[in-house]
């Protein structure tokens, strides 16, 4: 097997092992301790097994990307990696919990979807630069944390887990473009979305949500999927009214399944949206 000789690892700031066609690396990731100046480590789409090594000595690391391998074990502690901006280890077989991220204030992306992570989503209130938090398709429990400090957040996806509690207030998340929390065990209300003027997709289907706490939505919101919840007639009617008031043309709005049916003005509002090119499904 060919080997790579690194005679002066102290000078190395970036290691990138992107896979090209069928040329994939196997084996495990060895310790990165010697690369004390390592800023970027990419080893994407190979057949690597074993765990992510301890990176506590890599104190200038800005990006770690081990996406699409067969890595197991838990995510190592990241509290020493204070400059970390991007952590992408999605589509592996990682277990254990998401580590404490409170020291990683520059963190912009934390993407660990399609693993087998358990436990709670940690407090991310310190991560005020966070733009993407994608941890869908894991086995996470507990509630969605307070997101009011995450004003840079653009995409939040924690769908297909076992989360409980309510959807947090999103009024501070004015940069939010996509919010997805479908296929969980969430209860209470769909929050007010009137401040989310960049929001294009809001998917909360397959939960146990009962109400809607808002009155208006942004005209940017063109995909709203809330089917198979326990939304009341009042909630369904209010959501339809909010979309009519937003005035946008075209989009998909699904309030059907186990939700209540619209009544009165709600039925009229459904027809109005249809006339504007919307695909609308209700009971």
């Amino acid at each position, binding site marked *: 097997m060919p080997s790579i000789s690194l005679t002066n690892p102290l000078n190395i700031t970036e290691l990138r092992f992107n896979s090209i066609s069928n040329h994939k690396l196997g084996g495990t990731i060895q310790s990165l301790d010697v690369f004390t100046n390592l800023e970027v480590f990419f080893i994407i789409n190979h057949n690597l097994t074993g765990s992510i090594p301890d990176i506590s000595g890599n104190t200038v690391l800005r990006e770690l990307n081990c996406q699409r391998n067969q890595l197991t074990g838990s995510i190592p502690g990241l509290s020493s990696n204070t400059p970390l901006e991007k952590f992408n280890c999605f589509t592996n077989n990682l277990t254990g919990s998401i580590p404490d991220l409170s020291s990683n204030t520059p963190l912009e992306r934390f993407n660990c979807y399609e693993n087998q992570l358990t436990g709670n989503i940690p407090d991310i209130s310190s991560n005020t630069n966070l733009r993407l938090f994608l941890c869908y398709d894991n086995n996470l429990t507990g509630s969605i944390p307070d997101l009011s400090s995450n004003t840079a957040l653009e995409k939040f996806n924690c769908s297909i887990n076992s989360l409980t509690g309510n959807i947090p207030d999103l009024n501070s998340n004015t940069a939010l473009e996509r919010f997805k929390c479908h296929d969980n065990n969430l209860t209470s209300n769909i929050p007010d979305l009137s401040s989310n003027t960049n929001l294009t997709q809001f998917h909360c289907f397959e939960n146990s949500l009962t109400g809607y706490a808002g009155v208006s939505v942004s005209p940017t919101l063109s995909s709203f999927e809330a089917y198979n919840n326990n939304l009341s007639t009042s909630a369904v009617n209010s959501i339809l009214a909010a979309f009519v008031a937003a005035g946008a043309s075209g989009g*998909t709005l699904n309030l059907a399944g186990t939700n209540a049916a619209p009544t009165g003005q709600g039925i009229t509002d459904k027809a109005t949206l249809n006339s504007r090119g919307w695909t609308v499904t209700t009971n």
Partner: protein
Amino acid sequence: MAIQKITDVDNIETAQEQWWVIYNDEIKTVLEGPLQCSGYTSSPYVIVIGDTEKELLTYIEENDLIIPIDYEGEL
């Protein structure tokens, strides 16, 4: 039941156990689904109804429909 393709989608009823998909026939792109939920759908596009998700995925493949990748900007 065989796959049903309906082009005039005006309050089309789907049952709880059925799977369905909405797509734009002009640009051959899936807009919603495949999903399973009961209700009444109205749409300017095409609805295809089947008994299983697999039936619909086969339909999507055989008709060269595009399911938009939900690219989240991983890199």
